[in-house]
Each structure stands twice: as structure tokens, then as C-alpha cells.
């Protein structure tokens, strides 16, 4: 697959690099260079912003950093032009990573705040460049810098440089999309918290994507500095770069590596057509209008829409999987260890805005058992699951899982210790297919399977939960029952040592509950340890070995389900007989 794609890229590269030898007027070569230039900027922007949804309005800053790096090195230090390009990329990448290292630590800075912050950074950088000896006001002139004769003419040299960088950028964007990094980024786009809980190291991934994205923009800036040969702050750090880059990606489709390239080609050609006809003003208005229309009517972009249509047709071609072959969910459940403590919580407390959700809770989960966690609404059951899975940090107390304290670990590290959870209200990644949803935890869980194997594993779990026919659907097309099972499949695919189920049965019909009970029995039969929070008494009674009853954030009873459910305290708290 990769070999064929590589051959395709090489062939396209060879074919396109022959263009300068047809003797086109320099004018056309320059135009083609500009198309390639915008392709690099748009595709590189998309690596962070399109994939992960962190829309940066600061691409101009990194592009500009590259421009000024090349301009400064070439004019003031006499570094040969080609040697300045890696430096341009490096400076921009380091700048981006440094910014990201601060910004990505703050979970509130998503969406529009991230966009505006990066825009502000652009202006700050512009001011600094303008007022220091980097520029100082008059701009930098590169006309005296020698241009290496790669092509037969200067314009063809730029074309070839642009072509090389564009192909490299597209290749990188493609590889990232198809790698673990890409899968993680797309998951971050849909639900960053869930991604983290499933084992995606969100912080590092965002940083990596930002670094690559900025580095490529920096190299493009380096070439552009030479192309325009006169670099000024006003032109470099203008609003045009972020505006056009966002437009191109949104227009082409930001969920696919190739989408922004389509958008870049269309927009550049459009702008060129208007400029050539002396309607530059109308051209900008047209670009603005197109942006509005695309957002209102084509939210997936031209290319995105086309790809979606293609994928629909491929659904029927999905290979069938033998449902009778579910893999062992836990790699670490040898029968001999049964009955020993797997998870132990001591003195766990958590308060939200003054409300004590959990107070000094002790809990023990034994290997191989099914432990039911019951209690009235608001008694702290979900909070307990959220603490164990790392969604929140406890105010005090320890959580020991196979001897390791989880309370100090980041959520994605907890996932890697072999712990998985479901959400009461299913939280699938809305833009990933059912198959991709389930493959993700297999890639990021304890076994960290490679992509191909993870897909295979996912198919088996989908077959196990009866969702095989829906593998290529989007989660939005599933009904509640199917989405609940998708949650389950997603948790199982990481082959967890401990499975935390948060109200799997709520909202299901009687028949569906019977299904789910059968499924959980099957999971259990393979030796998994399960903690489940439940309201449906029937399921609790049929499935659990032991139950723990919570009320107002405290454990009020635990032990054999039938005995505990008869205790008067439990009856009063859980079933609400205030007068009893």
C-alpha cells in the first residue's frame, strides 16, 4: 500500500518536474510556484488544525519566522540560500513547539480562544521583528543573494523547489493521517477528554503536530522570502496568510490530507483570475463569499464530500469476520491469581464547588470478580469511575491498581496500565467510523497494537458485540442500544485488566438488557474483572458477585448482592422510602 503510494508520488514528482522543460513563459512557472506555495501552507496548517480541530490563526507567524530566518541568514550572515531553508524550518518549528508547550497545557484554550491567541502571537512577533535589528523597519532585500540554478531559469528553480516541498508536505500529511499520530489527532478533534482516557497522549500529540506544521510553514516562508526578494513586516505578517489558509482547508475539506491542496489550487487560481482581469478587489470579495457559502452549505469541503461519497460505496466490501472467535480480553488474568486484590482505593475524596461528591471512600476490587456499584442518583458512583479512570484527580486518597498509584498518573498512562471504561451517555468519536472508534483503544491501550492489527482486533470485538455490519457507519447512525455496545466494544478492544462500566443498561429495553447481560457474562467467562455502576436491579442481581452501595459519597454497605439489598439502610437510601 505504502509502496504503491510512494511510487505514485515519485511518478507525479517526475512528471511535474518536467514542466519547466516545455519552455513555458516564466509567468506561468511563477503562477504554478504560487499554487505549490499555497498548497504547502494549507496542507501544513491542516496537520494540526484540520486533524485535531485546533484552528490556528497564527500560521502567518510561523511562515513569517521562516521568511525572516532565511532573509537574515542569507543577507547578514552570507549563508547560501539552500542552507537557510532547514534553518527556517527549524526556527519556525521551535517557535511553534515553545508556544504549544505553554498553550496546550491549558485545556480551556481550545476553539476560538486558541484561534485568537495564535492571531495575537502573530502581531506580537511582527512588532518584535519590526523594532529590533532583525528588520528595524525598512525591510530586507534579498536581490543580491545568489539563487542556485536548479532549473533552466530562476522561475523554474522556484517552481522545482516549490514542487519538492509540496510533495514532501503532502507525503508527510498523508503519513501522519495514516499513522497512530493521525488517529490520535482525529480523536482529539472529536472528544479530547475521551481520547486521553483511551490512552492517547494528547499533549505530546498536539505538540508534535504543531511542530511539524510550523516547520513546514517555515520552509515555505524561506523559499517565499527568496521569491519575493524583498521582505517587509507589513507584507509578511498580514492577515492574508491565516485567512487564505483557513479558507483553502475548509473549502477543500480539512479531514483529509489532500483536501487543503484542492482548496489551495482553486483559491489561488481564482485569485489569479481576478487579478489578471484587474478585479483584485472583487477577487477578495469572492473569496469571502465563497468562505461563507462553504461553511453554510458544504461543511465538509469539496474534497471531503467526495471522499465521503466514495467511502459509502466501499462499505459493502468490508471483509467478514468469524464472530465465534473473540480474543481474550485480558492478557493478565491467569486463573491462579483469582480472588487477589486488583484495585484498591483508600480514603478517596472529591468535592465539586463545595459539594462533597465522595468522602473517604475505600474500595477493593478482586481479580476476576464482577463488582456492582449501586446507589441513588448523585451518590458519587460516576465520580468514583471518573477518579479511577483519571478524568478527575482526587482531592485526597490513593488508588492502587496492581500496586501502582493511579492518582498521580495522567489519564492516558492509566489507560496503558490496562484499565478501560465506558460512559453512561455514550461518547463515541463522532467523525470516526465505528471500526476506527474501536481500533483506537487497541492502538493506544496496554498492548499498543500496530494499526493493521488494531483494525483486525476491532473487527473481532465488533463481531462479538454484534456490530460487525455497522463497522463502516458513523456513530451518529447507530441507535442508543448500538451506541452502548459500541462503548463496550471500545473498552474491550484495549484488552483491559479491569473494565469499568458506567450504566450500560440504562435506557435499554428488556430484550436489549437480556442481550447485554449475555454479553457481559461472555466477557466475564474469559476471566475479565469488571466494576459496574448500575440502576437496573435485575442486571445487578444476575451479574454481580459482590456489591458496594454508595449514598451521599460514602460507602454504606457492601457484600453479597441479595443480602445487601435487603438491609434497611440500603432500601431507604437506594429505593427511596423516606417514611419507612
Amino acid at each position, binding site marked *: 500500500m505504502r509502496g504503491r503510494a510512494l511510487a505514485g508520488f515519485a511518478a507525479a514528482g517526475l512528471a511535474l518536474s518536467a514542466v519547466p522543460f516545455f519552455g513555458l513563459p516564466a509567468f506561468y512557472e511563477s503562477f504554478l510556484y504560487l499554487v505549490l506555495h499555497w498548497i504547502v501552507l494549507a496542507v501544513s496548517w491542516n496537520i494540526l488544525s484540520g486533524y485535531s480541530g485546533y484552528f490556528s490563526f497564527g500560521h502567518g507567524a510561523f511562515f513569517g519566522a521562516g521568511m525572516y530566518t532565511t532573509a537574515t541568514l542569507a543577507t547578514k550572515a552570507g549563508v547560501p540560500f539552500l542552507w537557510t531553508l532547514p534553518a527556517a524550518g527549524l526556527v519556525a518549528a521551535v517557535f511553534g513547539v515553545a508556544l504549544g508547550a505553554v498553550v496546550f497545557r491549558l485545556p480551556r484554550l481550545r476553539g476560538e480562544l486558541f484561534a*485568537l491567541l495564535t492571531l495575537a502571537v502573530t502581531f506580537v512577533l511582527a512588532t518584535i521583528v519590526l523594532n529590533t535589528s532583525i528588520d528595524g523597519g525598512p525591510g530586507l532585500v534579498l536581490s543580491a543573494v545568489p539563487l542556485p540554478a536548479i532549473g533552466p531559469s530562476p522561475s523554474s528553480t522556484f517552481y522545482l523547489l516549490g514542487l519538492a516541498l509540496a510533495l514532501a508536505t503532502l507525503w508527510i500529511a498523508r503519513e501522519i493521517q495514516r499513522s497512530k499520530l493521525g488517529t490520535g489527532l482525529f480523536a482529539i478533534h472529536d472528544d479530547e477528554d475521551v481520547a486521553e482516557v483511551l490512552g492517547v497522549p494528547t499533549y505530546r500529540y498536539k505538540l508534535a503536530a504543531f511542530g511539524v506544521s510550523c516547520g513546514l510553514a517555515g520552509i515555505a516562508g524561506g523559499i517565499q522570502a527568496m521569491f519575493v526578494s524583498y521582505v517587509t513586516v507589513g507584507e509578511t505578517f498580514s492577515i492574508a496568510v491565516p485567512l487564505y489558509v483557513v479558507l483553502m482547508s475548509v473549502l477543500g475539506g480539512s479531514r483529509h490530507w489532500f483536501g487543503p491542496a484542492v482548496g489551495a489550487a482553486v483559491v489561488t487560481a481564482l485569485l489569479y483570475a481576478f487579478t489578471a482581469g484587474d478585479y483584485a478587489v472583487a477577487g477578495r470579495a469572492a473569496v469571502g463569499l465563497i468562505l461563507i457559502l462553504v*461553511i453554510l452549505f458544504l461543511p465538509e469541503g469539496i474534497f471531503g464530500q467526495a471522499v465521503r461519497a466514495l467511502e459509502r460505496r466501499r462499505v459493502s466490501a468490508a471483509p467478514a469476520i468469524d464472530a465465534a472467535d473473540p480474543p481474550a480480553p485480558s492478557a493478565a488474568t491467569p486463573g491462579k491469581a483469582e480472588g487477589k486484590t486488583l484495585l484498591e482505593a483508600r480514603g478517596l475524596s472529591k468535592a465539586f464547588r463545595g459539594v462533597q461528591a465522595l468522602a473517604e471512600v475505600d474500595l477493593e476490587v478482586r481479580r476476576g470478580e464482577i463488582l456492582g456499584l449501586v446507589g441513588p442518583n448523585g451518590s458519587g458512583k460516576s465520580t468514583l469511575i471518573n477518579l479511577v479512570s483519571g478524568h478527575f484527580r482526587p482531592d485526597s486518597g490513593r488508588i492502587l491498581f496492581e500496586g501502582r498509584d493511579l492518582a498521580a498518573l495522567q489519564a492516558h498512562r492509566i489507560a496503558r496500565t490496562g484499565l478501560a471504561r465506558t460512559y453512561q451517555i455514550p461518547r463515541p468519536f463522532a467523525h470516526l467510523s465505528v471500526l476506527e472508534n474501536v481500533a483506537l483503544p487497541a492502538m493506544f491501550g496496554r498492548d499498543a497494537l500496530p494499526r493493521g492489527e488494531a483494525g483486525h482486533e476491532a473487527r473481532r470485538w465488533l463481531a462479538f458485540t454484534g456490530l460487525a455490519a455497522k463497522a463502516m457507519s458513523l456513530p451518529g447512525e447507530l441507535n442508543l442500544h448500538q451506541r452502548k455496545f459500541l462503548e463496550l466494544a471500545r473498552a474491550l478492544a484495549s484488552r483491559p485488566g479491569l473494565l469499568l462500566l458506567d450504566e450500560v443498561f440504562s435506557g435499554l429495553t428488556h430484550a436489549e438488557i437480556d442481550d447485554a447481560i449475555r454479553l457481559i457474562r461472555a466477557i466475564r467467562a474469559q476471566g475479565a474483572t469488571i466494576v459496574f455502576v448500575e440502576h437496573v436491579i435485575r442486571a445487578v442481581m444476575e451479574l454481580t458477585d459482590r456489591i458496594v452501595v454508595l449514598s451521599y459519597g460514602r460507602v454504606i454497605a457492601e457484600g453479597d448482592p441479595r443480602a445487601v439489598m435487603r438491609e434497611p439502610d440500603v432500601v431507604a437510601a437506594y429505593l427511596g422510602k423516606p417514611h419507612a
Partner: protein
Amino acid sequence: MALPSLTLLGQSLLSGIFIGALYGLLGLGLSLSWGMLRQINLAHFALAFLGAYLTYQLAGAGMDPLATLAVIVPCFFALGALMHWLLARFSVSAFNSLLVTFGLTAIIEALIQWIWTADFRRMESAYGEVKFRVGGLYVALPELLTLAMALALSLAAWAWLRHTYTGKAMRAIAEDAPIAAAFGVDVRGLSLLLSGLCAAFAGVAGLCLALSYTLAPGQIYAWLGVVFAAVMLGGLGNPLGPLVAGIVIGVSEALTMAFTAPAWAPLVSFSLLIVVLLARPGRI
């Protein structure tokens, strides 16, 4: 570096307050529509410039610049309401409203350039020449007018939101629109009203721009960063926030200019913004 004289310092402070008032005036509508309706209207700046050019045009035809408000305010009110209707009709998210209004900005900019060309335009009016001397300091009438309007509109918006039934209903919409509706608040009507008002504020800001500044289409973007900084520093949806934050930024800029080179001024607002975003992201 020589310390500036006391007079120069006073004059800087004063000009900082005045430019801050304009930041606040430009930020008022932006802050209210972002904070209360979750619509980030980038086109607010383009609207303000459109207002400025219209004032320029009408004043050139012999109208008193202040009288142009009688035309501009109702027109912009309708425009703002129309924009909101469109965004609501397609239920555009906060983020996408940023993109849509980005596009709208480009269209309005092109429109301005098409009608009035890219040349610099300067409105000639009787107000422009009037200057008062207070102690050793000069105060120009247009700047004073800007401060007065910014104060009046911000205080009026504050009083409306704080003390009237419809104002409180507006705040309730910002907190939980469906529940507000369940208690009888006409969410659609009030949202249209607020959007109209925000656009009308842009029109008034446009008048002030035309009174004090030379106009060019490219200038639209020059205000964007500073005013966003003022809006975010002031707290979204807070009617007094942009003015207070605007004056803080304006004065810091003016002092930066007085003590260092003028070109360093933009760094102040953005540094302030970045510090606030990083230090207290929850506040925005």
C-alpha cells in the same frame, strides 16, 4: 533614555484615555454579541469602517457628522439583525461564526475599496478643528466626543442589562436560552434586538473613527488585535469591561510610546492579552 517632560506625560495619558475610549466603543458590540449570543463577529470592524465611510460621504454632502447617526444607526440596526437571523437560521457555531464573519469582512472591505478606492480619506468637519486647552494640555473635540459616546453607550448597556426586565431576560438567554424561553422570554426577538444594537454600536464607533482618523480600507485589520484584547480582558458579555480594559490598554500604550519608541506600542496590548489568557483562561 531621557525621561519625558511632565506635560508630555500628561498629554500621553490623556491620549491614552481617548484612544482607550475608542477601543472600548469598538469592543462593546463585539463583547456583547460574543458573550451573550455566542457569535464572534469579526465583521464588527468592517461594519465600523463602513459606518465611518458613510459618515464621511454624508458629511461631504453637507450633513452635520453627528446628524448622520440618524441615518446610520437605524440602517446598521437592521443590518445587525439580518446578520443574526442568517447565523441563527443556519445555527452556526461560535467558531464558525468567526469564519463566516471573516468572509463577510473581506466582502465589506472589497465593497469599501470599490466605492471609495484604497486612497486615504479624511473627513473635513467643523468638529475636527476645535481644541480646548486645559492647563498645559490640549483636548480635541472629536476625542472628547468619542469618550462621551463610549461612556454613554457602555453605561446605558450596563443599566439596561442590570436594571430592566428585558435586560435581565437578555442575561438569562446568555445563561440558558431554552429555560429563559420556558419562562416567557422571547429568545428570538431579544437576540435580534441585541444583534441590531451591537451593529448600531459599530455604526457609532464608525462616526468616531471618521471624526478623528484618516480612513483606508486596509485599516480595518489594524484595530482587530487591540480591540479583541480589550474585549477579552474586560470579560465577555460585560458591558463596562471593554471600556475599562480599553482605557487600561490605551494608557499603557501611550506610556510605552512616551518612554520607548512608538512602534513598540502594539506589543503592550497583545502581551496583556496573552498573559491574561494564559493566567486566567477560565475568566474568558
